[in-house]
C-alpha cells in the first residue's frame, strides 16, 4: 500500500502553546507545512493521502453511475465527524436527507479483538522472519489509545450509527432541490463555515461539509453549469480560510467534458470510484482477490497546501473490499502477469507500478 512519508523541509513550524491543544482535540493531526489533517473515516485512505484530508481543502469524488461506492466514502466521512463531535453539513438531492443519517455506519470499538487478530496473524507470518517482529510492535502501540481520541475509527457498515451521535448535534441537512440556482445553498454553506473560522489564537472544532451528487438530474440547477461552477469556486475560497473540509461527489458522466474537467481542476484532492463487472472470468484471472472486491478507487490528486511540491503516489488505483462484509479496506491491486499484446483495459489502469507491462519479455 502506498504510504508516503511527508517530505521534511528545512523549515519547521514552531509550535506555540496554543497549537499544542490540537493534540487534545480528537480528530485533528498535524501535517507537513503547517497544515492539519482530518480523518476521512477510512484508515487506508488516510494512509494513501498521507494523513487524511487537509483542513481547508476541497475533496471531490467522481462517481460512477453504475455503482454506489461514493456513498461509502461519504458515509464514513460523516460518521467520523459525528463520532468526533464535529459540526456537519450534509446536502443531497433526496427528499429526506435527514433520513440518511440513520444509515451511517457505527464505529467499531472492540479494539482488543482487532489488535489480537492482527497479533495472531503477525505471529504466524513472522515465524521465519522473526527478527522483524520488533518493527511491528511499534504499530501495535498505536492501538492502545483511548477510543474517543482515536484519529480514525474503523466503521462497521452493517451496523447503523447510534442515535445519540446525531440527535443533539449541530447537523444541517439540506435538500439540494430546494435551491433553484444554488444561491440559498451557498448562503447556508457560508454561514456554516463562519462557525469554524481559522485563526491562530484558538482552534475550534473543525467542521465537515458533505455534498452528495451535485448535479444529479433531479435538481433544477443541473443544467446551469456556470452556476454550479461558480458555487464550487466560491465554496473552495471560503473553505480555504476556515477550519473545515468539504467532500463533494458529482457524476461526471452527466456533464459535458469541459465542465467535468473544470470541476476536477477545482478540486484539491480528487478521487474517483469505478464499478467492476460481476462474475467476469477475465478479471478474475487477472486480479487476485477478485471475489471480495466491490469496486476500484483511483486517487488522481492529493491536496498540497502551503507547498509547491506535488505528491506522487506509488500506486493510484486501489481495489475496494469489504472485509467481513463490514469495513471498507483499500488494497493495492495485485496483478497476474498478462499478455502485453492483448491490452486489457483494466490491467493498464490497475497496474501497481504505474507502468503497464507491454511487449514480451526477452530472455
Amino acid at each position: 500500500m502506498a504510504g508516503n512519508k511527508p517530505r521534511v523541509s528545512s523549515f519547521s513550524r514552531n509550535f506555540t502553546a496554543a497549537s499544542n491543544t490540537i493534540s487534545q482535540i480528537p480528530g485533528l493531526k498535524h501535517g507537513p507545512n503547517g497544515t492539519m489533517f482530518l480523518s476521512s473515516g477510512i484508515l487506508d485512505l488516510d494512509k494513501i493521502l498521507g494523513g487524511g484530508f487537509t483542513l481547508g481543502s476541497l475533496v471531490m469524488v467522481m462517481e460512477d453511475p453504475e455503482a454506489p461506492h461514493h456513498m461509502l466514502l461519504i458515509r464514513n466521512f460523516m460518521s467520523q465527524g459525528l463520532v468526533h463531535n464535529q459540526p456537519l453539513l450534509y446536502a443531497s438531492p433526496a427528499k429526506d436527507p435527514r433520513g440518511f443519517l440513520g444509515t451511517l455506519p457505527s464505529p467499531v470499538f472492540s479494539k482488543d479483538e482487532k489488535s489480537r487478530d492482527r497479533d495472531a496473524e503477525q505471529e504466524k507470518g513472522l515465524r521465519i522472519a522473526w527478527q522483524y517482529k520488533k518493527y511491528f510492535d511499534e504499530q501495535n502501540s498505536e492501538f492502545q489509545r483511548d477510543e474517543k481520541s482515536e484519529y480514525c475509527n474503523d466503521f462497521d457498515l452493517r451496523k447503523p450509527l447510534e442515535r445519540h451521535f446525531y440527535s443533539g448535534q449541530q447537523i444541517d441537512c439540506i435538500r439540494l432541490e430546494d435551491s433553484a440556482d444554488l444561491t440559498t445553498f451557498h448562503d447556508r454553506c457560508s454561514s456554516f463555515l463562519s462557525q469554524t473560522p481559522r485563526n491562530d489564537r484558538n482552534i475550534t472544532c473543525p467542521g465537515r461539509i458533505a455534498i452528495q451528487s451535485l448535479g444529479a438530474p433531479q435538481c433544477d440547477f443541473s443544467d446551469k453549469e456556470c452556476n454550479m461552477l461558480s458555487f464550487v469556486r466560491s465554496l473552495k475560497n471560503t473553505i480555504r480560510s476556515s477550519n473545515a473540509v468539504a467532500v463533494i461527489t458529482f457524476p461526471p458522466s452527466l456533464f459535458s467534458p469541459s465542465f467535468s474537467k473544470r470541476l476536477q481542476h477545482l478540486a484539491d484532492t480528487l478521487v474517483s470510484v469505478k464499478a467492476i463487472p460481476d462474475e467476469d472470468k477475465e478479471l478474475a484471472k487477472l486480479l487476485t482477490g477478485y471475489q471480495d472486491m466491490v469496486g476500484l478507487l483511483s486517487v488522481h490528486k492529493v491536496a498540497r497546501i502551503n507547498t509547491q511540491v506535488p505528491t506522487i503516489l506509488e500506486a493510484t488505483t486501489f481495489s475496494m473490499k469489504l472485509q467481513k462484509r463490514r469495513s471498507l479496506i483499500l488494497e493495492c491491486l495485485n496483478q497476474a502477469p498478462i499478455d502485453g499484446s492483448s491490452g486489457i483495459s483494466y490491467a493498464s489502469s490497475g497496474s501497481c507500478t504505474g507502468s503497464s507491462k507491454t511487449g514480451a519479455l526477452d530472455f
Partner: protein
Amino acid sequence: MESGRIANLTPGTSTRANLYKNLKDLNKLLLAIVELGKELVEDGKGRFAVAIDSVSEMLRHASIFSVAGLLSNLRSHSQVSCLFWLLHSDIHETKAIAALEYISSIQASSEPITRPINGQRANSEKLPFLEQNLRGGKIHIRFKRRNGRVRLMSEEFCIEQSGIKFTPISSEAEMIAQSLVPKVQFNLELSEKERNDRAKVVLPFEHQGNGKTIQIYDGRKSLNEDRAEIQYTSAEKVQTVTDSGRGEIIYFRDSDDEMPDSDEDPDDDLDI
C-alpha cells in the same frame, strides 16, 4: 383530467383509464400517479408498480430534469414497488440518456438478431430481416447490484403466441473458445517441434569427459590417495548419473577435509 372505465378483459383484473393532458407540470402528474396507484391497492396501504410506456414522449414536452425528478420521486416513494419505463435510445441526446441511466438500477437494451450488412439492399431482400426482427431479437441487461458490481447478461428472445420465450445466445453469435491456460507473457505450451527438440537437448554434465571418468581438481595436494579412500568409505554418498552410456559422474563429498579457502576457481574444470 378525464376518466373512464374499460370493460373487464380478464376476470380478476380491473382497468381504469385517466387521461391527463398537461405535461408541463410534472409534479401534478406525480401526485395523480400516486393517487391512482393508491386507489388500485387495497385500503391505500399496499404497494403498486408503475410502468411508463414512453419516456421519449414525455421528453418531447418536458425537460430531462423534470422527467428525471418525476422518475426519482416515483422510485423513492414508499408505496411504489418497482418502476419500469421505455425509451428510444437513438433519438435523444447523450446527456438525457446518461441522466436516465444514472437513476436506473437495471438497464435493458434490445437489438435485432442480425443486422443487414449492406444497407443498400433492395426492399424485397429486406423483408426476411424485418420479419425476423418482428419475431424476436437480443436483449442485453446491465444489472447494478447492491454491492456495486455490475452484472451483464445477454439473451435471445422470440415472441410467440403464448408469450415471450428467452433463450441463451445461440452459438452463431460470437463465442470464442477460451483455453484454460491463462494469458501470460511466457509461452507455457510446447509445439510438437519444440517437444522433439527438448528431448534432444544434451544436459551439461552428460557430456563431460566424453565417456571417461573425470577428475575435478579441487585444490588439494594428495589427490589420488584421498580419492581412493573416500571411494570406499562413502559409497552411499556417490551419485552417478548415467544416460545411455554417455558418461559418468562420480561425486566425492569433500566437505570433511575442505580447506578454508581455495584460490582456484572451481568452475575452471567445467566442460559444458
